[in-house]
């Protein structure tokens, strides 16, 4: 009986093991934040590059 209970409890928590391991510390949000910063800077860079080329195109027409 005791074993059975223990097994059900283990079976109940196992699927979430990786999930909770991944999130318990909450540090993944730091990675998400850093990726967001890098991606926004690359995007801003691309937008500015695009604008510069558009300016050159209109100037040389």
């Amino acid at each position, binding site marked *: 009986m005791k074993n059975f209970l223990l097994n059900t409890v283990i079976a109940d928590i196992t699927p979430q093991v990786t999930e909770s391991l991944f999130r318990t510390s909450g540090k993944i949000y730091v990675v*998400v934040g850093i990726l967001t910063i890098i991606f926004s800077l690359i995007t801003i860079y691309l937008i500015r590059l695009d604008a510069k*080329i558009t300016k050159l195109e209109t100037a040389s027409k």
Partner: protein
Amino acid sequence: MAKIPYKWYKILAILLLGYTLIYGLLIPLPADVGMLDETIRNLFYHVPMWFGMMIILMIAWIYSILYLQNQNPKHEIIARALTFTGILMGLCGLFTGMFWGYNTWGSPWTNDPKLNGVAVGMTMYAGYWLIQKSVDDGEKKARLASVYNIFIFPLFIALIFVMPKLAKFSIHPGSGESVNFKTYNKTYNMEMVFYPAIIGWTLFFVWIAEIRARYEILKQRKENEKLFA
């Protein structure tokens, strides 16, 4: 004009990629993904590189055919910009794949049909780059590169897509008898990031190719002005 007259595709690319980068890291995974564990999130970053590369190289292939048909130098410039961007995407896919493979299979390179196909295919595209860099005569170069591109694209697809699918054994997911995306996606929520990721990454690299093509056309125009001045 090489400039794509729609602004919305750039906005769409930024939105979809932002969503992919953030939600791709936070999405709850199916409980059983085998040895891949958390690294299955690479599905949103490594796999779209290859899908996007195939799409971009196909557009480049169409532009190469167009160039041979009507000899419009702009088409050749667009084809070149797209091909180089496609190669860049392929390299991103290759290096991310090697890193992922090193951490999952224990070796950055296995003698897998998919990986060997990519190795041969990338060498063929290195040949394209060589033609672009080594022939001096502009028109001859354009024609040579276009013909070469028309030849290698179908071969490349056969090597990286068709042959691995036909192979008896492959360790790489999605080829041969091995597992594929659907095997692991038991909760059916990974599509919510996977398909936007493919569209987002592809549009983002199309944007880069567009900037490159516009720069090359401007350069060409400057050189022509110098010639006739």
